[in-house]
């Protein structure tokens, strides 16, 4: 289990702790064919998932303009296999790139649930991380992790397109760690 991504075990979200602990148990208990199968096929699934990340076409605010700029000619996000799909059924990354108002909470939660299982959430920009410049607003949710478990935070206001692609590089490392512990683990 690559601990470098979890330098401080305290800050793990409940979901991450669950998957980390079940991975530990799987390491110890599993043996024989299941273990070797996981060991062999893990990197293949990881390579496939890493190189075809489809984020949801869902722009909220200023970082959405930079998300669009990330897929243009200079910072081509499609080089790493990222296409923006518009239906949540066919995506695996929920990308939140703006401030989240109280009116939007049920919609984001429903979108998160509609995305099929191995899914990740990327909080892009200060507003999604912690409410950003609208710290004292009555209508803004102060941070995305109050609604959905977040995997990668990309700081900046608004973030540069290359910072976004760098954030997705970090997410690729996390996808690797997720698959190295055995794909068909029900956590």
């Amino acid at each position, binding site marked *: 289990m690559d601990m470098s991504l979890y330098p401080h075990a305290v800050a793990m979200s409940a979901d991450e702790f669950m998957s980390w602990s079940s991975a530990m148990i799987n390491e110890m208990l599993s043996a024989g064919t299941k273990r070797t199968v996981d060991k062999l096929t893990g990197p293949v699934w990881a390579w496939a998932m890493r190189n075809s990340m489809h984020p949801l076409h869902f722009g909220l605010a200023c970082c959405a303009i930079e998300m669009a700029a990330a897929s243009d000619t200079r910072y081509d996000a499609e080089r790493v296999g990222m296409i923006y799909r518009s239906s949540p059924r066919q995506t695996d990354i929920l990308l939140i790139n703006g401030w989240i108002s*109280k*009116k939007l909470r049920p919609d984001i939660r429903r979108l998160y649930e509609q995305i099929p299982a191995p899914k990740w959430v990327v909080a892009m920009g200060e507003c999604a991380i912690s409410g950003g410049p609208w*710290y*004292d*607003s*009555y*209508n803004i949710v102060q941070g995305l992790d109050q609604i959905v478990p977040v995997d990668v935070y990309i700081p900046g206001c608004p973030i540069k397109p290359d910072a976004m692609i760098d954030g997705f590089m970090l997410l690729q490392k996390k996808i690797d760690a997720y698959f190295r512990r055995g794909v068909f683990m029900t956590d």
Partner: protein
Amino acid sequence: MSEDANIIEKPSRDDIVSLVKAEFGGKVEFIESTKKNIKAINEGRRLFMKADREVLHDLAKYLHDKLNFEQASSVAGVDWVDHMQVVYHLTNYCTSMVVEITVDIPNDDLHIASVSDIWEGANWHERETYELFGIVFDGHPKLERLLTPKSYEFFPFRKSYKLRGQE
């Protein structure tokens, strides 16, 4: 000139002042701006009025029909703790003149005639002022919450409502 003679396509500044004074007399008073080197005011493209609540709807109708003020740019609410205020900005495309009408409303009876039947553009501005200040616009076709979620009961922009950072 448009078909019936009494619509003045390009009313000059003192035309408007004289006509409105003749029409509404004491109820509408004109405020002279004290600023010296603002280009728009020096070239006479701004006009500031203070009107009473009763006469507002007729004044708006008069400006719209007779003096060709085609667009209601904005309807703003202001909360002066002891009383409320609604500020209208009307624009005339031909002379690009902007008229600012401020109307005082007592705190206990927050009602004012809606101008959305004259200008369709003011419709959403009035809904927004209603949901943020609580000023009721009589005769508005659909006075509901627009920006804030339906479950909000309070009026956020009033001075009485404190933000998270304030006291």
